[in-house]
């Protein structure tokens, strides 16, 4: 048996999905929002693909699409991680006060 790149990709996708399901079966409600927004920031990983899509200086259609993808994905990454941290900091500060 030889696996083509698509099949290997599907294997990876299916296994990673199982890892995801197994890892996060029980989430306390306090963390529902931070988990969602943190996961959302991770979905900004598309930025890696976007970087590879805007590699020339020429204003071609492909480059403009790639650059737009970089902008939107970077907003997702930077904003997502920071706002998640802001929320989690709020949860954390009560412990110190006690």
């Amino acid at each position, binding site marked *: 048996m030889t696996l*083509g790149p698509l099949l290997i990709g599907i294997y990876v996708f299916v296994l990673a999905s199982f890892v995801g399901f197994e890892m996060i079966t029980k989430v306390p409600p306090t963390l529902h929002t931070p988990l969602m927004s943190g996961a959302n920031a*991770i979905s900004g990983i598309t930025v890696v693909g976007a970087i590879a899509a805007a590699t020339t200086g020429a204003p071609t259609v492909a480059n403009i699409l790639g650059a737009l993808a970089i902008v939107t994905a970077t907003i997702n990454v930077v904003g997502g991680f*920071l706002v998640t941290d802001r929320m989690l900091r709020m949860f954390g500060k*009560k412990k110190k006060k006690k």
Partner: protein
Amino acid sequence: MNQEVIQSTVVPVIYLLSTVLFIFGIKQLSKVRTARRGNALAAVGMLLAIIGALLELGVVDYRWIAGGMAIGTVIGLLFAIRVQMTSMPEMVALFNGFGGIASALVAASVYWALVVQRSPAGKVYEVLGTDEAITVMLSILIGGITFTGSLIALFKLQGKLKKGQPILLPARHYITFVLLVGSFAFGGLAVAATASDSVVWILALGAGSLILGVLLTIPIGGADMPVVVSLLNSYSGIAASMAGFVIGNPVLIIAGALVGAAGLILTQIMCVAMNRSLLNVLVGGFGVTDGGGGGGGSDEYTSVTSCGPEEAAMILENAESLIIIPGYGLAVAQAQHAVRELADMLKARGTKVTYGIHPVAGRMPGHMNVLLAEADVPYEELLEMDVINPEFKNTDVVLILGANDVVNPAATKDPTSPIAGMPILNAHEARSVFVVKRSLSPGYAGIKNELFEYDNTMMIFGDAKKVLQGLIGEVKDL
């Protein structure tokens, strides 16, 4: 080190490290103690992945990359710093949309560069390979749906679209179905066409996916937003995975799959909390169509007692135990600080104060927890439904702030009610119940709440924040 070694070894190892960090990050994000570290780990993973991507490119023209990242960073920073905690649902919805559109754009860019620019005469499936051609189409489809779906969710959360009410087009299921089949057809035609002919099919696919996103989200009611927001979160992950298939990068596939799974789990938790199936939520129009609103008896209220803050303050003052049940009304009124202040005053007088949090209270998973955390309410005082429900019958006073359907006893008592079977907070079992609400208007289920007619229930009409400030003033004077 030459570029070949970097390509074959260094970059894959960096990507592997980043994958591991994502997995640890998400794992730790789901535990209170480690959540903040988990988020930081995931952020480091992201940084590594970006470094890996830059190394993989080698020396190219960096101007567009740098410009795009700079613009994105500034906008992201502004959002993260300026957003109010009460607007978190909107923020998450918007970011889901950005993630979705980014994946669609990557696929479109790859398609344009390899197909239209480089080999306009060849067939798309020959140029890209059938596998990759199909993943390009899927990436555009899912990314587009996520984008407009998230924007509609955002507008609904802001109350701009019919105040968040469902919008029901005639024959909407048929339109959606036809459009979905049509989009698949456009994608298939694009794969089979020659490069120059395929552009029009790609545009049709893009337009179809954007319209689908709108159609799939508009029939869903405001209070079902927790389900929708977490589902769109899942979509944005799957879109990232698809982009990973397009560019053949396992980090994207894995990270996207993890996010897809996390979003799906949250969606499931939300559905269970409403005793509804995902399909039922997605079909939409809850409590509006099919005459389902009538449920148990008349919709008119007959014997509602109401009182002012003075009377309520006197009862609160003598209460030994108080459970506060916050709902969306608390978020709208931005009353989280006022509620903490009142709770602090009562605690100082010896009252035991806890909060009962329904899983779908508010407009996104965990909405109330974030809101109350902002006001420094210790999270140990926020109790889940299963924990708090046995406590109500031994509780003196329940104060309901802008919640409605999640405390409607009809859910457990009236099998014909549209919300029958939905787990509720058993507020009615307490000795006295105060409901702070602007009017007697129904909640999202569109049914009356028989709790308001109970003998032990008193309504305090008004905006949650103003009523709480009134209560605080009265308790001070006592």
